[in-house]
């Protein structure tokens, strides 16, 4: 599904990713951990095509396509979803209208018929129920006046509606209390499927208590320093990142 090969990239003027390689197969969940400034978020933003990250060299193949040559909106329509670390507020635009616009833009790109409002409403109501979230999420303007937890939940809800093939969660667990964390994790687990892959960027091992990853990678100084299974996350939790440098 995703093959990142020896990627170098800058965030602004600064060289952040320095030879990162990673392969993700369909249905897999990869957790990416690592100290501040190691390039975790830059990696997520690179995959989503956010303009503040500029690739320098290396390649990213996604579903047989050269991902880095696609525009951000095209990547989204091809099934790449980024749950933002800091979800953005859009005043005056209600969440449901936003999502329908997004979904239909993606469908149009894929040559599918747009979904009419009745169909869409049925679908989102079902998703809200499946993901154990509250109806009022639909009517409120996108992220405006949302608490930190609500914003993160909204990201997971959007992910549920847009049904991506590759979902990247950028520190979605940061700043969440344990109840909110569970809702977010349950949402992700609900969305796990044999043809949907996840890259979960996190600081804390506790999220991985709820979402069981297939692999845990430690990112240090712009590349993957160590790969293991879930036990690696425990090690990190206990010992910190210092031992990686030894």
């Amino acid at each position, binding site marked *: 599904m995703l093959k990142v090969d020896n990627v170098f990239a800058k965030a602004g003027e600064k060289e952040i990713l320095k030879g990162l390689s990673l392969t993700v197969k369909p249905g897999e969940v990869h957790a990416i951990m690592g100290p501040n400034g190691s390039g975790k978020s830059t990696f997520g933003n690179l995959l989503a095509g956010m303009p503040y990250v500029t690739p320098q060299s290396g390649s990213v193949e996604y579903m047989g396509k050269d991902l880095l040559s696609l525009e951000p909106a095209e990547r989204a329509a091809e099934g790449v979803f980024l749950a933002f670390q800091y979800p953005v507020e859009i005043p005056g635009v209600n969440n449901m209208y936003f999502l329908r616009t997004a979904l239909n*833009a993606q469908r149009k790109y894929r040559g599918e018929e747009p979904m009419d409002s009745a169909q869409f409403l049925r679908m989102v109501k079902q998703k809200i129920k499946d993901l154990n979230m509250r109806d009022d999420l639909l009517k409120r303007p996108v992220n405006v006046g949302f608490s930190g937890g609500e914003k993160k939940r909204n990201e997971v809800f959007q992910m549920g509606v847009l049904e991506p093939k590759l979902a990247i969660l950028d520190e979605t667990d940061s700043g969440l209390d344990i109840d909110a964390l569970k809702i977010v994790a349950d949402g992700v687990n609900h969305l796990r499927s044999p043809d949907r892959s996840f890259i979960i960027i996190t600081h804390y091992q506790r999220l991985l208590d709820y979402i069981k990853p297939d692999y845990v990678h430690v990112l240090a100084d712009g590349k993957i320093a160590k790969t293991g299974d879930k036990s690696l996350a425990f090690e990190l939790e206990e010992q910190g990142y210092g031992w990686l440098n030894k």
Partner: protein
Amino acid sequence: MQVVEENKVVKDRAKQVYKEGFVTDIEAFTIPPGLDEDTIRLISSKKDEPAWLLDYRLDAFRKWQKMPTPNWAKLKIPEIDFQAISYYSSPHAANANAPKSLDEVDPKLLETYDKLGVPLHERERLAGVAVDAVFDSVSVGTTFKAELEKVGVIFSSFSEAVHDHPELIQKYLGTVVPAQDNYFAALNAAVFSDGSFVYIPKGVRCPMELSTYFRINAINTGQFERTLIVAEDGASVSYLEGCTAPMRDENQLHAAVVELIAMDDAKIKYSTVQNWYPGDEDGKGGIYNFVTKRGNCQGKNSKISWTQVETGSAITWKYPSCILRGDNSSGEFYSVALTNNHQQADTGTKMIHLGKNTKSTVISKGISVGKSQNAYRGLVRVAKKADNARNFTQCDSLLIGKSCAAHTFPYTESANMTAKLEHEATTSKISEDQLNYCLQRGITEEDAISLIVDGFCKQVFKELPMEFAVEAKALLDISLEGAIG
């Protein structure tokens, strides 16, 4: 493949940028350009007007001649040659004064309104909306007149009203906007040709939306319409105007006057969707829209609400205002003004608090794109006797691109210590973060901008009658063409 298709979409949309820009090829009677007392006598005689009205016009003309052109607005207005404009043009088919049956109207005119999405035929009329259609200097027809008469509502062209209800016109004309009020109002008072008259009798709630659709067609003409709406005690009405004009390289002048009068407990809601031709992307052509609109909340507990969506015109100069004379009366102003390319807008409102416990609300949303200049200019004045007056003003500006500008000129004058005036102002750019967020969800850049702008205008759009809110949104999308890049 995808790329090719997208290019086609972009091109198709670019072509429809101003889809109202067509010209109707129709024989018209147009008086030669030029303006003197004889011109005014000619207009008046064409309309077979009573002597008092001719005198009113001539008096206004003499005052206008002595007035300087106003230059206080933040606008660059090229000098206008008033002698080069024709002040009256009427399609032959429309006989200026005979009460019109729509069956007799030239099919070309009906076709024009069909194309503009305002069908006048009995069959296809907009449900629940009565329309007065003004083409150049005359009204070509008014729908649903009979139905409205049943409840005592008068809705007719201004010229007809002069003949059928002279007592009402004489009583109210110029009482809210006097002829000498300002330069363009004086010009209008001298040469106004047609417009709409609305009278809602005591206690009547007008059973349908009323609207006037203004169309400039003839070349080198100005349009000078006059609208007068009177709501008696306890009456209420919602009125909407729309305006379009062909695409021409020459600038055309539109100088209108609108007067509203609300008696005790009366409510008038006046909405405008202004889409005059804005000129091309190099700033060539377009309408000069110099308009004086004012409402008088004469009675206690009366209410006047202005809502405007201004996307057209090369230059817009208008300040729909409320005089809050009656105790407990309230005034509202909701405005979206979008300028693109070389368009200039200087618009806002005046809220004059004279009565006790009067209340006003001002919500202004300015959107500047391209090289355009967009200014909000507002005055809130509280008179000495206006105890407990309250005003809330919110002015938000949104900038798209680097070469445009937004300006805010809020003036307040309070002579009463009990007044409470609040003012909030923001200027923002569509943030990269908002755009990126939309892009990441698969929304194209163009749709993302339109989505964000639509959200920015929400507070105003929700004040518009439903069917026009949809139109207004579509209009904004078209006006945002080329906002990116």
